[in-house]
C-alpha cells in the first residue's frame, strides 16, 4: 500500500499503479489525448503532466508509477499554462476546418482547446498537405488532422493484433501510416474501425454512405429496405442523451420510416436464420467428422483476419454468410419475386455497429452481378441521418418491424454481444441433436466482457468444448493454442471488436467500457424477459424454410446463404 498526497488530499494507491489512474480515481480531471486505459502508456501527448514536489520538471502522470510520500499538484498555474501551450502547438499544424469536420461535436482536441481557453492561433506552421487515404472501402485517413497520439497504432497492434499502421518517418516528417506509406486497402487492415473509435480527432473516419442512401431514397423507381443490427437499438439512444443501454428499437423503427425507408427489417431475424444454418453445419461437422473446431463467420473483420494471417484455418470457418448478407440475399431473391419487384429496383441498406460491414458488402461473392447490400450505415451515420431529417427521436411513437423479416427470437438479438452467437447456436444445436429445448438456455461462462471465455457443454452424452473471444489479439491466443494441437474445443466464436458488436468500430466515438457493459446488460434483459428464446422457434424463420429454402444446408441455402473464403496475400 502506497500513500501519497494529490492536491492536498491524502490518498492511497497500490504498488505499480500509474499516477494518472490514481488521480482519476480520486476524482481529479487531468486531460489526456494519447492515453487509453489498458494499453501501454507512452506519454506522447504530455497533457497529463503534473508537478511532484522535489522534481523540477513536469512529469507525465500516465507513465509515472506512484511512490510513497509523493506530493502531487494537478492544476497549478504552471501546469495549466503548459497544457494550454501543448494544445496551441498541436493546433499550430492542425487544419482550421472544424466547421466542416465530422468530429466537430466529439473532437477531443477541440474540447480541450475550449476547456483550456485557447482563443487565438499563437503558432502557425505552413502545414504540408498530405493526401487523404480514401483507398479503403471502410475507412478514411486524413493525416492532416492526425496529432500523432498513437492511440490507433496501439489499438491496432495491442487490441487487434493486426499492426497495419505505425509511425513512419521521424520528427516533423512523422506520420501514421502503413508499411511504405501505401493505401489501407492493400495493407493488412481488417477494417474493424477500432482505430476510429480510438481517434481523438477527425483523422480517422468511416467511408460515409449517407449520400448514396439519400439518393436511393429520392429515386421513385427504388424500393429501399433497411435492416438494423442487434447492437444498434441498444446503442442509438445514448447519442440522444438517453441512459446507455436503453433499448430504443420501437422509436428507431419509427425514425427509419420517417427517414423514408419503405421496409424496415431486423438483422436479428436473419441472425436466427444464420443460427439455423450454422448450428446445422456444426452438428453436421460433428456427426460426419468434418473440419473442427468450427469457427463463426459473422464478423467480417475476423474473416479478413483469418484470410490474411491464418489461412490454414479457412476450412474451419463456417461457410455461413453473416446475418446482414443472408438478409440481403433473401431480400433480393425470394422477397423480390414475392412482391414482383425486379432485383435492380431493390436498394438494401444496413445499419450496422461496424465499419468492416462496408467492406463485406463490397466482396464480389456477396451478390449476384449486383451487390446484395447496397449501402451500410454505421450507428453514427444513422444518428447523423436522423438529425439531418429533423426527426425528434424522443417524441416518436414506437412501431414494429415489417414482415416477413421483422420477427426475431432473443437468441438472434444476443448476436450483438460477445458470446451471443455461441449461446444462440448451442440452443439450436441442442434441439437439433435431442429434439428438445435446453432447460436453462443461458450459458453463464460465455457471458460478460472477458476477452477469452470457455465452456464445456454436454448434449446427449456428447461433450462439446466451446471458446469465445472478442478482440482479435484474443482470437490469436485461441488460434495459436489450436495450431499447437489443442483439441478439446469444437466450436469457436470470434468477434473482432472488444465486447462484440456492441463495442464495434461503427459505434459512438470513444471506448467507453461502462457503456458497452450497459448495452450488454440490455441485450441480456431482452433475452430474459421475452418468450421466444430459440432461433428454431421463430415463426418467420419456419415460414421462410417452408415457403422457400426447404431445409437448413439445403440447395437454396447453399446458393444464397453460404460462401467461400480466400487466402489474402498482402504485406503483413
Amino acid at each position: 500500500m502506497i500513500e501519497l498526497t494529490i492536491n492536498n488530499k491524502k490518498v492511497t494507491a497500490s504498488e505499480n499503479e500509474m499516477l494518472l489512474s490514481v488521480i482519476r480515481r480520486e476524482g481529479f480531471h487531468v486531460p489526456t489525448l494519447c492515453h487509453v486505459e489498458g494499453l501501454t502508456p507512452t506519454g506522447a501527448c504530455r497533457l497529463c503532466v503534473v508537478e511532484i514536489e522535489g522534481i523540477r520538471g513536469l512529469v507525465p502522470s500516465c507513465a509515472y508509477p506512484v511512490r510513497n510520500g509523493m506530493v502531487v499538484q494537478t492544476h497549478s498555474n504552471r501546469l495549466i499554462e503548459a497544457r494550454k501551450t501543448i494544445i496551441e502547438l498541436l493546433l499550430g499544424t492542425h487544419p482550421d476546418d472544424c466547421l466542416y469536420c465530422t468530429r466537430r461535436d466529439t473532437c477531443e482536441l477541440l474540447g480541450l482547446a475550449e476547456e483550456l481557453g485557447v482563443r487565438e492561433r499563437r503558432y502557425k506552421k505552413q502545414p504540408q498537405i498530405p493526401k487523404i487515404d480514401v483507398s479503403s472501402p471502410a475507412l478514411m485517413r486524413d493525416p492532416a488532422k492526425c496529432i500523432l497520439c498513437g492511440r490507433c497504432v496501439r489499438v491496432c497492434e495491442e487490441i487487434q493484433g493486426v499492426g497495419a499502421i505505425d509511425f513512419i518517418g521521424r520528427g516533423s516528417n512523422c506520420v501514421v501510416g502503413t508499411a511504405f506509406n501505401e493505401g489501407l486497402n492493400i495493407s493488412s487492415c481488417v477494417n474493424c474501425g477500432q482505430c476510429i473509435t480510438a481517434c481523438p480527432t477527425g483523422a480517422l473516419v468511416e467511408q460515409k454512405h449517407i449520400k448514396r442512401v439519400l439518393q436511393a431514397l429520392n429515386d421513385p423507381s427504388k424500393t429501399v429496405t433497411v435492416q438494423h443490427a442487434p447492437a444498434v437499438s441498444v446503442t442509438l439512444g445514448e447519442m440522444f442523451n438517453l441512459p446507455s443501454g436503453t433499448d430504443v428499437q420501437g422509436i428507431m423503427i419509427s425514425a427509419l420510416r420517417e427517414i423514408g425507408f419503405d421496409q424496415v427489417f431486423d438483422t436479428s431475424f436473419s441472425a436466427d436464420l444464420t443460427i439455423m444454418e450454422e448450428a446445422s453445419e456444426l452438428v453436421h461437422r460433428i456427426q460426419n467428422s468434418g473440419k473442427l473446431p468450427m469457427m463463426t463467420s459473422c464478423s467480417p473483420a475476423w474473416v479478413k483476419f483469418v484470410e490474411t494471417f491464418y489461412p490454414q484455418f479457412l476450412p474451419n470457418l463456417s461457410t455461413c454468410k453473416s446475418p446482414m448478407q443472408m438478409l440481403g440475399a433473401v431480400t433480393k431473391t425470394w422477397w423480390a419475386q414475392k412482391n414482383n419487384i425486379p432485383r435492380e429496383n431493390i436498394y438494401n441498406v444496413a445499419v450496422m455497429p461496424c465499419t468492416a460491414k462496408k467492406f463485406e458488402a463490397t466482396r464480389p461473392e456477396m451478390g449476384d452481378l449486383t451487390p446484395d447490400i447496397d449501402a451500410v450505415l454505421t450507428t453514427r451515420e444513422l444518428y447523423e441521418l436522423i438529425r439531418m431529417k429533423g426527426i425528434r427521436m424522443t417524441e416518436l411513437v414506437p412501431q414494429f418491424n415489417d414482415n416477413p423479416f421483422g420477427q426475431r427470437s432473443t437468441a438472434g438479438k444476443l448476436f450483438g454481444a460477445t458470446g451471443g452467437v455461441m449461446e444462440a447456436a448451442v440452443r439450436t444445436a441442442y434441439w437439433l441433436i435431442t429434439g428438445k429445448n435446453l432447460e436453462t438456455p443461458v450459458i453463464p461462462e460465455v457471458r460478460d466482457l472477458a476477452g477469452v471465455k470457455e465452456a464445456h457443454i454436454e448434449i446427449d452424452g456428447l461433450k462439446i468444448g466451446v471458446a469465445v473471444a472478442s478482440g482479435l489479439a484474443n482470437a490469436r491466443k485461441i488460434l495459436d493454442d489450436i495450431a499447437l494441437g489443442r483439441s478439446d474445443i469444437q466450436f469457436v466464436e470470434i468477434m473482432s471488436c472488444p465486447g462484440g458488436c456492441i463495442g464495434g468500430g461503427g459505434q459512438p466515438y470513444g471506448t467507453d467500457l461502462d457503456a458497452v457493459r450497459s448495452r450488454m446488460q440490455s441485450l441480456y434483459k431482452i433475452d430474459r424477459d421475452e418468450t421466444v428464446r430459440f432461433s428454431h422457434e421463430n415463426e418467420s424463420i419456419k415460414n421462410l424454410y417452408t415457403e422457400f429454402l426447404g431445409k437448413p444446408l439445403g440447395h437454396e441455402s447453399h446458393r444464397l446463404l453460404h460462401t467461400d473464403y480466400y487466402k489474402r496475400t498482402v504485406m503483413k
Partner: protein
Amino acid sequence: MDSEMTLNEILSNFNDKSRDNLIPILQEEQRHRGFISREAIIQIGTALNLPVSKIYGVASFYNQFRFNAPGKHYIQICRGTACHVKGSARVLDSLLTDMSVKAGETTRDKMFSIEVVACVGACSLAPVIVVDNEFHANVTSAKMSSIVSKLRKEEK
C-alpha cells in the same frame, strides 16, 4: 556494398530472432544489398514475427536506411548549416527537377541515387556534394549539371 550473402543467410546468423535484433539485421541487409527492399521487409517481419508496418516504421526513423535500389552513381548533397547558407537548397532543387526524382530516390534509368545528408564535415567547401565518395566544393546549379552530364557522357 558487399554482395553475395542472402537475407536468409543473414537471418540465420542471428540466433535470437527477437525485435532487439531488428536494427542489426536491417543494417546487414543494407550492407549486402545497398537498400532495404519490400521483399526484405516482409521476410524480416516473418522471421521476427513483427508486422511490416513496424519494421518500416523503425527503418524509416533512421536516415541510414534506403528503400530504393541504389543507382550506378551515388550523389550526396549536404544540407548542413554552412551549405544551407551558401545556397545548397537551390542546388538540390535544380538537381531534383533535372532528374525528376525526390530525395532518397533513384532515377528511372538507374543511373543516379540522390541522398540528402546533414553535414559531411567540409563546411569550408560549402556548398558541398559528394559523388561516389569524391568531394566537389563550391557547387552551384551550373556546376552540378556539368558534373552530371560528364558522368552521363562517360557511360556512353
